[in-house]
């Protein structure tokens, strides 16, 4: 959970100078990346013992 808090802090710290410089597009991309990181981070934290992207890929492509 501490990494999720750190993610949130990093997003805010990086976002402030962007807003000051009025870099709207950069700020939007940062927020998208931040949202993906927080979502996957939360998923990993709640499923840490079973989380496996490789397994999902194997299921999608039906690889045994």
């Amino acid at each position: 959970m501490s990494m999720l808090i750190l993610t949130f802090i990093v997003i805010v710290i990086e976002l402030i100078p962007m807003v000051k410089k009025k870099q709207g597009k950069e700020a939007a991309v940062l927020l998208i990346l931040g949202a993906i990181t927080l979502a996957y981070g939360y998923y990993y934290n709640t499923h840490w013992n079973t989380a496996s992207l490789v397994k999902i890929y194997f299921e999608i492509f039906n690889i045994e």
Partner: protein
Amino acid sequence: MKTGKDKISVRQLLFVFTIIVSSPSTRFLPKYAAAQAAQAGWVSPAVSTVLFIPLILIIDSLLKKYEGQSMSGIITSIMGKYLGKLVLVIYLLWGVWLSAMYTRYYVDRLTSSIYPNISNNVLIILTLIPIAYMLRSGFTVIARMSEILLPFIGTMLVMLSIFLLGRIRTDNVLPIYFNDIMPIVKASFGSSSVLAYLFLLFFLSDKVVNLKSFKKFGYITTYVNISSMILVIFITIGVLGSSVAQRSPMPVLSTVKQVSLMDTIENIEAIIIAIWIFADFTLISTLFVVTLNLIKSIFKLSDTKPLINIYAILIYFLSLGICSNKFELEESANKLLVPLNIVLGYGFPIILFVLSKLKKGSKSSTKQTSPS
């Protein structure tokens, strides 16, 4: 060749490529080659030239035709705005996947060799913090560092090979029969998949100067990389035998552990671990730069430095969640990464080259109608 502050020479880029290739070459190739072609596995990298030389020629042709553009720009010019961006997104996902996977490989290699009692989280954080810090200084730092350290890595590899020459058993690497051709071709997909990262590096071509000499340096790089791959696989299979090499978790480390010089100099595996750490560090940093450059091209951003930290945290979570155990990681390299690398590293550039040739007529007619 003198370069600008944020620019690197094509020679430096190919130095980085050689170091990048050295990491999977020592981790994955001996196992893969031994599993596919047994004692004949060491010949397989030579077959990879059949795919790699045309890749060099294709990249050279594209770079000459679209001078001054990065590979992202070339793809968008050839395929159009929307289809081009879709392709860039696919390459972005490939870059993210590779970054997460190689971070996990790096950590797994350390935990199974020298730090068995340290948690993966700690090692991943200790890897990603220096990378995120160094990338703020730009890609030139990585390129110059590679230029300095590659000769040392090459020398160490040659020295280790000389030390191990006496332990090679000829019946481990010979005989090679006519029937071995198909297994050798199958094994060559492993080395070809590793060499496919060359195309990924050219998403940084807007940072590279002197691209005109790419073909010349490309041939030298082919020679150096293919010979070093043959050397690593030959030594590993020659010392351990194909049966042990394909089953050992880290065959190169097991091989280097056997080095003994007049019973005085022993246990010099620290050298190979130092090479791994440096090669993986370069590999992950370069993948970071490529991915961030792709994000920059897709969204037309002015700067990607503010994205480095958040991207490093994303890779932290992805590298932890990419697999639940080492078995899955190795299986994904054999069954997923090899075909994916071949398709995206060789298949797509061929399509791009054909499309660029088809667009040739329309481009020349545009030039004729331009007011200048």
